[in-house]
């Protein structure tokens, strides 16, 4: 049964996208965006009842990739990570990312617009035809874009507030502590 499901899923990913028209849509202010957070970007939070929060360094990208809640859920966003290749090949071979290394946060588009962070929120669906292994199609894919180059002080401010405004959708404290301890044990 499991194999049959995988075959159906594979075939639908292969043929389903061919006739799909994923036009770019405006993202309304009441939408939410999901953002993946690698465990290396989690810190203790002294200012809220949460024990941990994403580090401002988790939002260091001129074009911050997110998933729009109209076409995704936190769980879907997390699962998609495991279908992506890491950007760097190891011994000439592509490797898939491990979604167990990541958690998911959300933030409200309205908060980004209202606070005048000079950031745009743009729908940016990813549709590959033919399907590419390691680069999954993603209708929910969206970008938070802003003038960050040449305006570093402002960029530091935006990163700080994205860190404060985001809320955990998927976070496992036990798993984080285990991953963090493993990483820190590798210190020189």
């Amino acid at each position, binding site marked *: 049964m499991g194999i049959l499901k995988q075959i159906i899923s594979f075939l639908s990913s292969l043929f389903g996208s061919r006739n799909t028209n994923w036009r770019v849509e405006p993202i309304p202010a009441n939408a939410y965006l999901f953002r993946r957070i690698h465990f290396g970007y989690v810190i203790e939070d002294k200012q809220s009842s949460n024990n941990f929060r994403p580090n*401002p*360094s988790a939002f260091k990208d001129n074009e911050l990739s997110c998933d729009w809640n109209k076409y995704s859920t936190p769980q879907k966003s997390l699962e998609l990570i495991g279908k992506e290749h*890491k950007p760097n090949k190891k011994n000439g071979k592509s490797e898939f990312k491990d979604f167990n290394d990541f958690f998911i946060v959300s933030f409200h588009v309205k908060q980004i617009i209202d*606070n005048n962070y000079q950031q745009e929120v743009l729908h940016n669906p990813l549709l590959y035809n033919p399907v590419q292994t390691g680069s999954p199609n993603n209708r929910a894919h969206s970008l938070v874009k802003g003038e960050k180059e040449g305006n570093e002080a402002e960029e*530091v401010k935006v990163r*700080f507030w994205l860190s404060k405004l985001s809320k955990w959708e998927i976070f496992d404290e036990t798993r984080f502590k285990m991953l963090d301890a493993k990483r820190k044990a590798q*210190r*020189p």
Partner: protein
Amino acid sequence: MPIPAFSIQPTPSNLSKWAEIYNNNDFLEDKICMPQPKHLKGLEKKNARLLHSGVEILKKSDQLPLRLSHIEIAIKDANYIVSLEDDWDSDGAIKIPSQIFNRAINFVIDYSISVFTNYNLVLVAPIISPVKDGSIDLLWETNENSLLVNIKNSFANDAFYYGVLDIRNQKNDFNGNIKTDNILSFFSIWLKEYQLES
């Protein structure tokens, strides 16, 4: 003898154990807290370099007064950063250059000592974090205030900062850029707001 993993930081109290591990009397006689590359027979050069940078940091952090020992602990906790390889976030992050890490640590030490010496105030320990472009973030936080400093990954000694004096009021904030090679009095005055609660 196989070289052990560097999970144990050598200290004056465990020097003899370290000397035993390396079977090297010079190391013990030098009475230093971290073996220098010359002591590490058979060790690959890369690790020797990492240890060498560790020597500099440890010597500098030795200057910290006892009341700032929490800052020394935060620095030691951040030592893993220099061992991160490219793609450490599975998303293309670059390795943190050791000189940028040292620059960030020196910044923390210099300002912690400056505020302590000039104002008799003890700062909270910052959270020291790697950033995917090879820079370092330093985040000082109390219950109400936050100050984020980004030590740029560049030849110039540049850092950019953003601070907020009331986390519930975004308008009560400040930002700008500073050089990291001098202690600037105006920045020390900002940092006074990030005291350790007694």
